[in-house]
């Protein structure tokens, strides 16, 4: 069967919507979708044995991760993007969670995977996966945002779609053991103030984490959204570092070393340091600050239904707490409206917001502005640039603007 394209779907919706503008319309002729039998009304569908592991409807084939080939030298040490514009709620489906690898996807046999704890501990230990699963478990929902999310936008509007400007993020429920329990099992010595986490892939990713954070809310997780981690997310086990930049969430976690000072590894010196205008750089910028984006309407999700009721929606998150409030403007920041938060509100997790308006068909300049539970207000990009310049690559949490024209098409812009 030929799969209708998303464009065909949108065109159909636009035609249907045109009749609606100006009030509730009467159909000119009977709708064949009602008056004519469809195949699914007569024929039998597939049985329960046809889809042992289900996939989305064929009509959702456009909802996929995408990459930007020119961003990196090759696709192995690279990144792709979550299709935020097609999602709702706060949970990212496992198959759509963006990927960031430094040496490709390691295909690790869990039977051969080991987790070692060494360094300034009373008892250097080795765990198998079976050992880890005998520790007490917790479940927590957290966002993982790449430090470089929106990084291509520092010098101005560049990529046209929130998938590309904000899609280096996902939000899932993790099941795992508190890192604290594993460290207590090994017995951290008094001098042990830093922890090095290391991955089992060919990049052997390493990051230094202060012991205070490690003992606070970090997890060693093996499940996401109820099922085993996907290989591209670190199967069989990864580190979860709530609220902190995604690079620290070491995948395929194989070793934890306790020390008395940071290791200053490549991923915390050459990378994940934030160069300022004066030529000096911040290091250890761990927290991801409060941020939000309108996911619809947006460049990949234009308004196709004409004037009238319009749902503006998006997501907000903060590495420093929850998001009690998001404000939305339709006029580029002259007037703001408090959006409606919907669904669960959890610490260091995504939050969903909605603003329902009656669109009169006039062009709009849409923005969202998150406030987190510490009272911090998401800054504009210009406020960020004033402090940091344009070369810091990471930690761009500036307010995003979509220009919506009279046709309902949206574009990534910067405004005065």
């Amino acid at each position, binding site marked *: 069967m030929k799969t209708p394209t998303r464009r065909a779907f949108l065109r159909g919706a636009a035609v249907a919507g045109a009749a609606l503008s100006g009030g509730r319309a009467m159909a000119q002729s009977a709708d064949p979708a009602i008056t004519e039998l469809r195949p699914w009304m007569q024929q039998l569908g597939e049985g329960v044995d046809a889809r042992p592991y289900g996939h989305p409807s064929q009509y959702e084939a456009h909802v996929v991760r995408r990459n930007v080939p020119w961003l990196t030298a090759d696709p192995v040490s690279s990144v792709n993007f979550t299709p935020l514009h097609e999602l709702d709620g706060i949970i990212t489906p496992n198959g759509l969670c963006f990927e960031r690898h430094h040496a490709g996807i390691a295909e690790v046999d869990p039977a051969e995977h080991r987790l070692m704890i060494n360094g300034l501990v009373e*008892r250097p230990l080795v765990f198998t996966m079976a050992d880890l699963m005998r520790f007490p478990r917790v479940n927590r929902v957290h966002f993982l945002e790449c430090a470089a999310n929106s990084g291509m936008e520092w010098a101005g509007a*560049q990529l046209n779609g929130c998938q590309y400007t904000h899609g280096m993020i996902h939000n899932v429920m993790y099941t795992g053991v508190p890192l604290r329990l594993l460290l207590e099992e090994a017995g951290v010595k008094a001098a042990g103030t830093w922890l090095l986490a290391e991955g089992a892939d060919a990049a052997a990713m390493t990051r230094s984490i202060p012991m205070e954070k490690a003992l606070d809310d970090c997890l060693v997780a093996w499940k996401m959204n109820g099922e085993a981690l996907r290989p591209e997310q670190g199967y069989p086990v990864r580190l979860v570092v709530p609220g902190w930049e995604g690079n620290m969430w070491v995948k395929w976690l194989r070793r934890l070393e306790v020390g008395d000072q940071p290791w200053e590894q490549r991923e915390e010196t050459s990378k994940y340091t934030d160069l300022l205008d004066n030529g000096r750089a911040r290091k250890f910028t761990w927290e991801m600050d409060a941020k939000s984006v309108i996911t619809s309407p947006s460049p990949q999700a234009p308004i196709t239904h004409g004037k009238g009721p319009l749902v503006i929606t998006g997501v907000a998150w903060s590495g420093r707490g929850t998001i009690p409030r998001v404000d939305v403007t339709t006029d580029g920041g002259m007037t703001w409206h408090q959006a409606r938060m919907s669904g669960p509100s959890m610490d260091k997790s995504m939050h969903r917001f909605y603003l329902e308006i009656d669109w009169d068909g006039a062009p709009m300049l849409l923005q969202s502005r998150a406030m987190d539970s510490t009272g911090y*207000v998401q800054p504009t990009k210009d406020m960020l640039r004033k402090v940091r310049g344009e070369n810091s690559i990471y930690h761009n949490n500036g307010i995003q603007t979509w220009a919506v024209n009279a046709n309902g098409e949206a574009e990534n812009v910067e405004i*005065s």
Partner: protein
Amino acid sequence: SRDGGFGLGRAALPEEVAAWDIDVRPDGQGLPRGSGDVATGEEIWVETCAMCHGDFGEAVGRWPQIAGGWDTLNRKDPVKTVGSYWPYLSTVIDYVHRAMPFGNAQSLEPDQVYALTAYILYLNNVVDEDFVLSDQTFAEVKMPNADGFFMDDRPETELKEWTYEPCMENCKEAPAEIVMRAAVLDVTPGTDEAAGEGQR
């Protein structure tokens, strides 16, 4: 069960720790025994590194540039290399040993790592051509941008400043105007179609 724990896991053997724990700190902790000179490093570089990073660390295509870029950090387009940006020599030794060459990681012996690192330092004008890098001479090398970094200062420079009750009405002196458009740049994948029609 073990004191303070669940009695899970087993003791890590010294040879197991040695096999995985290859990290090196700025103070030299973790340095492998060994040495290598610039000339030897050049031979290995040409053989195993230059096809991506260039004969002189200048980089091929989009692969990382290793040398050059001195005094560009406060310019519009900074060039961040080992010589212009990296604060610690330990990181070069550690990372080359741990993760390079790309696609054949952990194939280099400590002496080769020292030699390659010596050559990288030479390309960056940090050492002379007769320099021999080893666990003994490691401490003699001072990286040009060693003082270029400072701890995250957002709590002082940003967080307090941006914690306030935000404006809700009449927030701008003049209506906002568009000053830059992504569609003009046209670098988004799949944007051969009209903007806003949805990307495939």
